[in-house]
């Protein structure tokens, strides 16, 4: 009897010390959580690298996973506005509700770019809080990792020391990596580029790329033939070196411009898993820079 009781107690106590469940909205936050929490967390990634994170459906599986999560790690800044509200409502989990400790928005910890001066849907799918694609600037991961590691410690105070230790190691490694990437990317400074979707202001600001045109006439609107024609005309007078897009986007508009303007079309991983090479956060930036450098070559 005593033995049984002991086993039962062991089971209860072990379950209270079990790994915390993390619901990561995008693969980059799953990867960062993995680095910062290691085995202390079970991480579920809600979207794949080849999915448009603006348009994800509030699938039953997402609701079930959110129900059991202690921490939700998302970009925020209304990137997930089309699906996260339903997931939060239907999962009825106060631990990750808006305003709770378990609701972490990475965008809160970085300086947002392209915050619109006016909000008008005639301007397309504009984000009131600024451009949410913050993960393309490696420097943004420093403040986000700092905040996320503190949040992990807050939710799981028993392992606070471990989170702190892991974060310290990450920070050191990441700073070294940033220095390496910046050195590698030096030839990209001032290089004129065309983007398919306004998804790269952070990357441009970091590496000094010079965005001269967008293939989408308005954010979120499909590139039309007439608009592509205009972009092509403009490229004759102001040539660009390459056209870049995120891996999840349709290749056709980029390819169309690439063939006619005789510039390289470059698909960037955009997140972890976006390309076969981008298997973690480090390789994601390795591959991004390698592909951009590759884009400098004449096609």
């Amino acid at each position: 009897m005593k033995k049984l009781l002991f086993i039962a107690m062991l089971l209860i106590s072990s379950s209270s010390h079990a790994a915390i469940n993390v619901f990561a909205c995008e693969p980059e936050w799953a990867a960062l959580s993995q680095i910062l929490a290691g085995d202390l967390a079970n991480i579920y990634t809600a979207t794949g690298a080849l999915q448009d994170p603006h348009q994800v459906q509030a699938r039953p599986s997402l609701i079930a996973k959110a129900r059991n999560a202690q921490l939700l790690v998302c970009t925020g800044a209304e990137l997930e506005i089309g699906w996260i509200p339903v997931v939060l409502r239907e999962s009825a989990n106060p631990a990750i509700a808006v305003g709770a400790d378990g609701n972490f928005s990475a965008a809160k910890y970085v300086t947002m770019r392209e915050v619109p001066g006016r909000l008008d849907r005639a301007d397309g799918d504009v984000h009131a809080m600024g451009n949410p694609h913050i993960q393309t600037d490696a420097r943004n991961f420093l403040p986000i990792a700092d905040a996320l590691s503190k949040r992990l410690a807050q939710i799981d105070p028993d392992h606070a020391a471990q989170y702190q230790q892991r974060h310290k190691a990450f920070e050191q490694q990441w700073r070294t990596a940033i220095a390496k990437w910046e050195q590698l990317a030096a030839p990209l400074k001032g290089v004129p580029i065309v983007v398919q979707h306004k998804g790269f202001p952070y990357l441009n600001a970091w590496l000094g790329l010079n965005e001269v045109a967008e293939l989408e006439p308005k954010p979120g609107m499909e590139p039309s033939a007439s608009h592509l024609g205009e972009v092509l005309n403009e490229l004759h007078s102001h040539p660009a070196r390459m056209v870049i897009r995120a891996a999840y986007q349709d290749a056709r508009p980029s390819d169309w411009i690439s063939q006619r303007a005789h510039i390289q079309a470059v698909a960037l991983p955009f997140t972890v898993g976006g390309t076969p090479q981008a298997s973690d956060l480090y390789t994601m930036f390795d591959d991004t820079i390698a592909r951009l450098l590759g884009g400098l070559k004449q096609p």
Partner: protein
Amino acid sequence: MYQSIYTRASLLFVLSISCSAAIADDTTLHALDERITQLEQRAAPTSSANAFNPAISLILGGTYARLGVDPTIPATGFAMSANPGHQQGFNIGESELGISANIDPQFSGFATMALSPAGGVSVENAFIQSNALGSGVNLKIGRYFSGLGYLNDLHAHAWDFVDQPLVYATLWNNQLGEDGLQLKWLAPTDRFFELGGEIGRGRGFPGSDTNRNGAGNAVLFAHLGDDIGVEHSWRIGASLHETQRQNAISTGVPDLLGSVGGVSNSFTGKSRTAGLDMVWKYSPNGNVADRYIKFQSEYFQRKESGTLSYNLLTNSSYSDTQTGWYAQSVAQFMPHWRMGLRYDRLNPGSATVGAANTANVISNYGFQPTRTSWMLDYSPSEFSRLRLQLARDHSRQTLPENQIFLQYVMSMGAHGAHSY
């Protein structure tokens, strides 16, 4: 004295900024600019009266319908069911105003007002919801669309076709709205499993909106769903609905005597409905923004038994089991463009009628209403949609018709997230 210190300090500050600006490169300047804009926005005074305003959305919708048969004629064998029908010609039937906000950390509120084409406003939804109870419990109180089936709680602007399937039109008067209380529980499992129960006034068809202390209807439903890899997802469900009908009057019901324009019948008795629903979605790489296919099907069976008052005069026992189902598939074959096909079928069943009315009431029509609809829609953005729908309707015996619909559905203001 203090003032001069401040002046000097601010002068120094300005100087230092201009100095550093002179040596800063474009990128830094740009970043500074961005930060200043944000700071300005943060500092902008907003009165709290304004800041706490709820999210408001206005759905503007309208349809042009070209029909071959008078839409007030009900589906054969379903004259005692609902017949929401279609509006012929131009109409703005789907315009609605939605307001929602968090009330406090525990409650949130939603209201949808439907703007009727004839003028006037009706309350479509008005409920409070709490999901702060924990343990996966979700509570809704007020006027809501019942959680039964798959399509029932979808608002008209989110429908994949201009109209609801025939089975929803006849058995639920398009969709079952209730005044009452809904409790849902989501199991703490890896796979989605949800149980729900509702008790309500019995306001929506087939309920009878009468004064009583007890509940006028009860609903139970269960849903199970999951993903298969990143490309497939599914959900299946079962629902039960029960209500007591009291003096439910139907007009224009055909009878065996061939009364011109039909007769009025009244029914009092129990109405029990059971339903099954399934939906499966597929998207290459799971990227629904690009391409996807959705397949869904639902089946309902309604058994009614009680007393029928033929022509509001002759009473006899009456029981009937009606069934109906639909299957539809919608494909987004390229971004912004979707095509859909739907097949509807109803079975009015064969009624068991008491001796007093066997010579009056048609118990078996020997006809099963069907309809096939095809639609094509184009959504320039997620806030607008234009649709063409063609249908071959054979829901009225000897009156097959071709229907053409043109529709627009646009949303202004806050755009709520859509459910699965």
